[in-house]
């Protein structure tokens, strides 16, 4: 089955990297087909950023995300921009400190990813906390695969921190799923 995922937030939050890591984990370590397309335009830090992933067991033809099954947002702007294209039965995943929900959404999973990252000592790993949460909630990608993809994407001296961030998010994701 074809699953479409969109990640959205500010430029600088590591939104593009989230897409890259997710698709790479699925394609290389889980042996599925995956396409990653970063949003590409004359944007800069602080502006809107988004990245898109399509995962499927079958061959993927059309590479872009049109109606995501899963929307992961880390800014109010990205939430407002992309929530309307989320599938009716789609899953919305938010950083609850950064996104205020407007009206009755369908399925929503919340985590204070940025706050957790700050508690770990580096705000910059908020995207990795979120990736862990996404993995736990959706089970689309194995934990092993996402961990490998994360660790090969970060400088050696930050591996431990990122691993911790990923695990924290993942555990909350599993808890959410059990509820």
């Amino acid at each position, binding site marked *: 089955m074809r699953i479409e995922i969109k990640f959205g937030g500010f430029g600088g939050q590591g939104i593009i990297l989230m897409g*890259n890591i997710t*698709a*790479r984990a699925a*394609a*290389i370590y889980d042996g599925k*087909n*995956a*396409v*990653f*397309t*970063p949003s*590409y*335009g*004359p944007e800069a830090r602080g502006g809107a950023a988004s990245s898109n992933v399509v995962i499927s067991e079958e061959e993927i*033809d*059309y*590479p*872009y995300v*049109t109606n995501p099954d899963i929307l992961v947002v880390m800014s109010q702007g990205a939430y407002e921009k992309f929530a309307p294209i989320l599938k009716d039965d789609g899953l919305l995943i938010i950083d609850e400190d950064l996104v205020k929900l407007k009206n009755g959404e369908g399925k929503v999973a919340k985590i204070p990813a940025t706050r957790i990252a700050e508690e770990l000592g580096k705000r910059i790993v908020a995207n990795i906390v979120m990736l862990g949460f996404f993995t736990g909630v959706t089970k689309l990608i194995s934990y092993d695969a996402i961990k490998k993809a994360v660790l090969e994407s970060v400088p050696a001296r930050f591996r431990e921190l990122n691993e911790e961030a990923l695990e924290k998010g993942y555990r909350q994701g599993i808890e959410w799923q059990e509820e």
Partner: protein
Amino acid sequence: MKKQIKFYSGNIAAAEGALVAGCRFFAGYPITPSSEIAEHMALRLPQVGGVFIQMEDELASMAAILGASWGGAKSMTATSGPGFSLMQENIGLGAMTETPCVVINVQRAGPSTGMPTLVGQADIMQARWGSHGDYEIIALSPFSPQECFDLTIKAFNLAEEYRVPVIVLMDESVGHMFEKVVIPPKDKIKIVERKKPTVPPEKYMPYKAEDFVPEMACAGEGYNVHVTGLTHDEKGYPQATDPEVQDRLVRRLCDKIRKNEKKLRDIEEYEMDDAEVAIVSFGISARSSKAAVRLARQRGYKVGLIRLKTIWPFPDEYFEKLADEIKKFVVVEINYGQIKLEVERNVGRDKTFLLPKMGGEIHKPDEIYRKIKEVYNGN
């Protein structure tokens, strides 16, 4: 060495393909959406003993890769629309001097500066006819990062074999999408080198060809090398007032490609066995087309896809033959009808339909499916 599995964008895959093919010289002027190729070559070439030069513009970039090729290196540049326009003069020089080299054009929406960050496929005719005079080039069109890798290697091989500039006609979508790329073990990849003279220097005729393609001695190999854009005889010297020499030369420059069309043909057929209507597409448009064919097949339409991996030389004979079997052809491309002209030239105007897009976005499978329905039902 075992095979490797990478997760590359089309641009990076093309750069890595070039390195595997033996490219050791890159001259370029970065331009969106091709810049990652230059960036990656700047990083990687020094690691393998190659040379990267950022030139002052695209005229110079093209000139430099011709020069490097005559110095014995496999050479490449990468650009997009506006830069590709500036390269045309020296692409003609490359065709006339039979210089092996590869030019990647990651197409964006034009004309002029157009939409720098967004997709287009409107340089198809320019790739074929962009420089003045009669000449032929080869152009290949990948539809995935894997093919960006594979076809860039192939482009180098063909450039060496036919002594001609080979254009890799990518597009922004293929250049920027990331996918799995399998890199085969080195001994499983075919690499072609240019034919070298076997005769002693005093007997060497640099433009005498037994089989269309002359042997190529490069500077510093002990042979007299004379490279000119003027009409030249078999010795390589200008004969700019002799129509017979001109006739011989231009015929050979064109025929070495035209007469090898069948060998150069590279087409993927999908669901074509019982097809009554055929989609003709290439590059990123072929991916949407494939999805549309799947949709149409699920609903009982006998539709197939003809995907052109080699765009130039155009497979005239292939389409001529198909004209009897296929009722209608729908060309799906991100321009206002370029490959469509080639298809209708071969199968007839009444059988050819166009689903164009002016650029900035790719076709949605749904809209291609609607066009299939419309054409199929005869509207």
